[in-house]
């Protein structure tokens, strides 16, 4: 991943764009439910990465570096979008936050829908781990936090996903989720 990339080289960045764009887009499509928003943030992330391409260090994978930019951008985008929604304004006025309707959750048993209910940092950790195949160290380098933090996030995300998904469909038999194995994310 990222081998042969030279910092500041335009052709190499074009190559990185062609290979990493679909993967970064899919990561952001989990954080941002709207595909237009995901595309917008992905493009902005590549614009930001291109501006900093001369400063990229080859010791870190280039795609993970773009992922870091893209995830941070998507998180701030989602935060701004939430602030713009009327529900957020109402919540900030002191009214109780709207509770998700269980009927809606039952009508949306897809995995991506469940992932989108997670906080974006947890969702990003899950996607980087289980879709892109990064290990904790690579995720920590990509997101810019410690490996311990990544382990904690993966545990939290796994617990919330199990609670969300077991209602709708079973990914694995319940016996496959013993409580002692929840700590295994930190074993890297």
């Amino acid at each position, binding site marked *: 991943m990222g081998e042969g990339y030279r910092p500041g080289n335009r052709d190499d960045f074009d190559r990185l764009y062609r290979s990493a764009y*679909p993967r970064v*887009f899919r990561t952001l499509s989990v954080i941002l439910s709207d595909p237009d928003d995901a595309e917008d943030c*992905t493009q902005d992330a590549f614009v930001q990465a291109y501006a900093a391409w001369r400063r990229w260090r080859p010791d870190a994978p280039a795609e993970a570096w773009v992922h870091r930019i893209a995830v941070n951008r998507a998180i701030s985008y989602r935060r701004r979008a939430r602030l713009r929604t009327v529900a957020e304004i109402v919540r900030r006025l002191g009214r109780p936050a709207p509770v998700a309707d269980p009927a809606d959750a039952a009508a949306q048993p897809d995995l991506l829908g469940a992932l989108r209910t997670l906080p974006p940092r947890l969702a990003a950790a899950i996607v980087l781990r289980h879709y892109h195949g990064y290990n904790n160290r690579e995720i920590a380098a990509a997101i810019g936090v410690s490996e311990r933090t990544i382990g904690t996030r993966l545990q939290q995300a796994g617990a919330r996903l199990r609670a969300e998904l077991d209602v709708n469909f079973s990914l694995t038999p319940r016996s496959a989720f013993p409580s002692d194995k929840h700590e295994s994310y930190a074993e890297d």
Partner: protein
Amino acid sequence: MPKTENDPLGPRFAWRLRFELDRVQPRFSPPRYATRARVSPWRFAPVALAIGITGILGLTAYAATGSANPVVWTERARSVIEAVPPSPTPESTPTPNAPKAAPPAAPTRGTSPEPSGSPEPRESPEPSDDHSGTSGSASSTRLSTPTPDR
């Protein structure tokens, strides 16, 4: 890249996530960073505009003063500004005119007998030779006229 961690969510979760995300087809729009790179010269438009305005001002000043020295431009501008009277009062206008009228009056002190020809004394810086020539001829006529009378 090898996974060294166990997966509490199970292998089926990874398979299902891959299945779901692979169905998400990204829209391949043209890379925005390439478009931005083409637009980036517009960032320098204000600088180019400022350079152009400065150049036009410099050329105008050169054409007005005939000098490429900015010091000359500033002196010229200062003299023009100082030449403009601060207030249109009638008392102040004769005062600067008086010394300016003096230089044309200076050649007239050459005791020229013709007051009407004011530009001509300026052109002839040696009035003494002319006067001597005319006076000589006048004296010769005065001297010659009595002689035939006598």
